[in-house]
């Protein structure tokens, strides 16, 4: 009976974990676009700045970013609630990682296509929207979904700044009932189930897209 | 799939007392794709046989079936007292016995890049034949000297040219004292002049009495060094006989066309 209550408590926290995953991913996916464009810019200065930003973000542990944003922003700028702080921190890290994925996908598009569309007289925006973006989307999807599944696991870190997602709930219950074995096994299992669901979803989308945009 | 030279075809399956290898009805399919069909072939001790033919004729596949890198899907392969039947998967002991009798030289050499030349040649001697390090290294140096590469013993393969690497590969195979040496297009990945070094080694090996099966595009080698030439096309043997006969007066029209095309390039 107690196990059932544990499970219920964890399930109530799932929306938080998912919300954090989706919102961080969304922010990161958007921010990654200008970052990626800087990375492939013709101007060496922009490329260097983008590279430095990316490397810097990825060289600092997520928990430090979250603490920094949560404690320092709150101190000096504006009182952020834990969810927003976690969303911003994870979003920042996601942006750095997705920019690299986008870049890889862009490089996978044969150079001939860029040349052909140039010669056809398509404007930059036409080229970008009609030719590049759909293919970048298609080619980066596998890596992006793999990253998203990793991001779900990273949201557990938000438990350290008090976001009531799955890891937080597990911790609270373990401290209150001293039944750590059970609760953490349940929590771990739940993360696995959600990861498998996400992986299945991304495979279906990928198969669907394959039919439309063949390599 | 028209006339096969029947007399030559049958005369190849002669159970003479020094038959060291025989293949009966060997076929190979990869899924639904047929690569070899109805191949009958035998080899006597000390014979050098060249297998020639257009690309895709199944020559390499036949060689790879002989040493079971690919198991055949039909037919029987006999090497000495080891019999491998397509219907029964060979045991580990059988495979191991087979490997001991056969030495193989690959088109892409396949030397171990992270070991020195000497280590490449000595490794199998120590691990398979159980020779001591000293014994193995001595034998390795003998073989390397024989192919003129004793000076390269302590170097890594990447520092050797293609022709040198292939000669080292030959030494590596010879170090295990095989009964039969198999060569899978040994010079195809080499520049023509460099290929000559390798062919010289192979010629010397043939003259010393080694039993060899050589899949090759080198027509002069086929004519001058080998005793017998086997011509394959579309997965079958279409002509076979003493090398000078086949190379100069081929009976089969397809073989005539092939040889003319190759000679006139």
């Amino acid at each position: 009976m107690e196990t059932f209550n544990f499970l219920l408590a964890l399930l109530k926290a799932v929306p938080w974990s998912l919300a954090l995953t989706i919102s961080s991913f969304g922010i990161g996916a958007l921010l990654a676009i200008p970052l990626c464009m800087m990375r492939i810019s013709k101007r060496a200065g922009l490329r260097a700045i983008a590279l430095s930003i990316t490397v810097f973000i990825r060289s600092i542990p997520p928990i430090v970013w979250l603490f920094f944003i949560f404690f320092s922003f709150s101190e000096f700028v504006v009182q952020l609630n834990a969810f927003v702080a976690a969303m911003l921190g994870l979003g920042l890290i996601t942006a750095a990682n997705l920019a690299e994925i986008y870049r890889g996908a862009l490089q996978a598009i044969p150079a001939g296509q860029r040349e052909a569309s140039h010669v056809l007289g398509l404007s930059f925006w036409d080229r970008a929207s009609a030719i590049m973006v759909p293919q970048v989307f298609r080619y980066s999807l596998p890596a992006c979904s793999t990253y998203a599944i990793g991001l779900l696991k990273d949201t557990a870190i938000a438990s350290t700044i008090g976001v009531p997602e799955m890891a937080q709930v597990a911790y609270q219950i373990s401290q209150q009932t001293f039944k750590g074995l059970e609760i953490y096994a349940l929590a771990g299992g739940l993360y696995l189930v959600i990861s498998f669901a996400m992986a299945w979803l991304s495979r279906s989308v990928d198969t669907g897209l394959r039919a439309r945009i063949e390599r | 799939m028209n006339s096969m030279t029947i007399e030559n075809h049958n005369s190849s399956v002669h159970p003479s007392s020094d038959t060291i290898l025989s293949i009966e009805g060997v076929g190979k399919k990869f899924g639904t794709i047929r690569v070899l069909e109805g191949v009958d072939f035998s080899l006597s001790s000390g014979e050098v046989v060249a297998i020639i033919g257009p690309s895709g004729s199944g020559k390499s596949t036949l060689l790879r079936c002989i040493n079971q890198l690919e198991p055949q899907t039909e037919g029987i392969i006999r090497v000495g007292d080891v019999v491998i039947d397509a219907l029964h998967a060979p045991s580990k002991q059988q495979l191991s016995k087979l490997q001991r009798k056969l030495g193989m030289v690959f088109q892409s050499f396949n030397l171990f890049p992270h070991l020195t030349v000497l280590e490449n040649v000595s490794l199998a001697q120590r691990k398979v034949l159980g020779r001591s390090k000293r014994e193995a290294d001595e034998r390795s140096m003998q073989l390397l000297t024989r192919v003129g590469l004793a000076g390269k013993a302590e170097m890594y393969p990447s520092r050797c040219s293609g022709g040198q690497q292939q000669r080292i590969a030959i030494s590596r195979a010879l170090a295990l004292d095989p009964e039969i040496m198999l060569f899978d297009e040994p010079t195809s990945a080499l520049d023509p002049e460099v290929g000559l070094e390798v062919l010289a080694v192979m010629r010397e090996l043939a003259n010393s009495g080694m039993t060899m099966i050589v899949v090759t595009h080198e027509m002069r080698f086929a004519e001058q060094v080998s005793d017998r030439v086997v011509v394959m096309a579309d997965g079958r043997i279409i002509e076979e006989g003493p090398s000078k006969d086949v190379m100069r007066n081929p009976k089969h029209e397809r073989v005539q066309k092939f040889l003319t095309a190759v000679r006139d390039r």
Partner: protein
Amino acid sequence: MNDLLSNWSEWLPELFDGYKFSIQICTLALLWGVPVGLMLAIGTDSKTKLLRIVSICLVELGRGAPVLILLQFFYFGLPNAHVSLSSAAASILALGWSTAAYTSEIIRGGLKAVPAGQREAAVTLGLPTMTAMRIVIIPQAMRICLPPLLGFAMVMLQTTSLCFTIALPELVARANDIGSASFQYMSVLMLTGLMYAAVCIPATVITSQMEKRLSKHI
């Protein structure tokens, strides 16, 4: 600015102490995690069904569960099974399992990348399978794996920061202590971040140089 620097120099010794802990735990986790990762890489492709299933389970669990959950499972959970681990032991076990799971995938990729001709040469020379793996295939695979493994080592160093939740006195734990004592969170966290970056950024540079050099050989 002077205040900042003087604070930093004041805090540095303690943070350094914590960093040493982080590096030790990371090293120990890698030391046992990577060899197990190699075993799992071989095990997941094994022909023996039992071995294959066990290996796949260990990999999926080690990769599928958040590291934080693994850490807290070993530290807060195992006492229920009458196994009490110190925070260091729990950290090394949990991080090692995570390492084994992730590196098994990296190493599998490396094993597949060794040219097929190498295996064929070993077979035709009659080398027994285990010997061929040990002397021919694995050394070449590890060379190929080196850049991604190094990258993973850096990720693992950053992951030690999570051990702060199970009372390990590593870098972030010390930073947190200083922060709560001095209320200068921003300052101490900046220094902490820089300390991680000081190791991870050069490592990233070295890894990409290595990758460039390796791809030249191919």
